């Protein structure tokens, strides 16, 4: 029975993936991508990768989906022209060949993996006590491979700089995105008043249980970012001008704390990002607490987009 369900799920994922590529309407393709993300979440649950499933639902389906739908909205005026455009057969064939070759290479790589696949899981299980957290994913992300997590956070700062750098000169330093106006007594404003307290609790809960159960700062930060976006979209609070000092400080605070603790580890524990004996848990909590607001700010501001409205003198 479970095999049947899994096979159905896998078929659905492949079919939806093909449909998302084949759909001519950009909005339909973006909606298909969101559904694809949710199906992938189910697949990760079936593979017992609950942490990955949470991230896929929050980042893959939710945040990326919202980003794509926003992009579709902006491209609407160019869509008719893009759809009328027909590639000549040669480039189409070439694109199909290259895409097929990449897929085939990936499939061969996966099929050639030795059985059982090479894994470091037993070593993580043997050393997890040193990291002082119960969730092996958190132990890997913040103790054994903390460098990856640090670089990930820094990459996100760069992504936001990339979004901002598309701003026209006159809008530089101004407020990002459009000014949202909504009926203050309407349903959107109502939800934007009712939901954020609940979302804050859920986000902090997911962050906090990350020590011992699936969850963590990334998934928690996505929920916080979503709550902030909801408040902005309902017109209850405007996005801050990107020249604000507190905003700039918040965007770099997380990685800076991470790097500072890393250098402190070089002095006290003998290696960059090493934690001194017995202090791993509090240091991990400090890093996560510092990273979460930074991540929430970055994720929300990437969705809001680049600055568009100049600050009035």
């Amino acid at each position: 029975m479970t095999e049947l369900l899994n096979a159905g799920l896998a078929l659905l994922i492949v079919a939806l993936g093909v449909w998302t590529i084949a759909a001519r309407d950009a909005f339909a393709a973006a909606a298909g991508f969101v559904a694809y993300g949710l199906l992938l979440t189910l697949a990760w649950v079936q593979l017992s990768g609950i942490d990955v499933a949470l991230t896929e639902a929050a980042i893959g389906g939710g945040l990326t989906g919202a980003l794509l739908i926003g992009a579709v909205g902006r491209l609407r005026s160019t869509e008719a022209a893009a759809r009328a455009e027909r590639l000549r057969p040669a480039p189409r064939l070439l694109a199909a060949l290259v895409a097929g070759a990449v897929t085939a290479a990936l499939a061969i790589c996966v099929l050639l993996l030795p059985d059982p696949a090479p894994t470091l899981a037993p070593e993580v299980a043997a050393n997890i006590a040193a990291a002082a957290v119960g969730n092996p994913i958190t132990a890997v992300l913040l103790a054994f491979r903390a460098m990856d997590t640090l670089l990930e956070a820094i990459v996100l700062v760069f992504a936001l700089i990339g979004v901002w750098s598309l701003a026209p000169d006159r809008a530089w330093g101004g407020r990002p995105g459009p000014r949202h106006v909504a009926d203050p007594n309407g349903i959107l404003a109502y939800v934007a008043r009712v939901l954020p307290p609940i979302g804050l609790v859920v986000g902090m809960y997911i962050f906090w249980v990350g020590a011992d159960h699936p969850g963590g700062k990334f998934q928690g930060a996505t929920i916080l970012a979503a709550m902030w976006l909801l408040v902005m979209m309902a017109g209850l609070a405007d996005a801050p001008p990107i020249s604000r000092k507190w905003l700039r400080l918040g965007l770099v605070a997380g990685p800076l704390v991470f790097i500072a603790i890393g250098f402190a580890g070089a002095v006290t524990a003998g290696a960059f990002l090493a934690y001194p004996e017995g202090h791993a848990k509090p240091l991990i909590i400090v890093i996560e607490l510092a990273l979460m607001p930074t991540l929430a700010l970055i994720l929300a501001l990437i969705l809001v987009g680049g600055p568009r409205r100049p600050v009035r003198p």
Partner: protein
Amino acid sequence: MSHALDLLTIVAVVAGAFFFLAGTVGLLRFPDTYTRLHALTKADNLGLGLVVLGLLPHVDGVVAGLKLIAIWLLVLLSGAAASQLVARAARRREPDA
């Protein structure tokens, strides 16, 4: 007692699945945006409520049960809000509105 609870689970989850099916049929068959929204939100909210009700006897602990109920309430809230927003957007697009 446990047999009665199992029976409750089976009846409630099957009924919930039926409402999801009905909602999906409505989404595919109804003629315009408003009736489709009606089919989606009403049937799915009820369907999810019944599935949650059916799962409640089998959760370990009160907290897990409360979490399930909280999820249902949150889906109710988001479903109601989203359907209102979609309906308003559809209405704005109508030429004679």
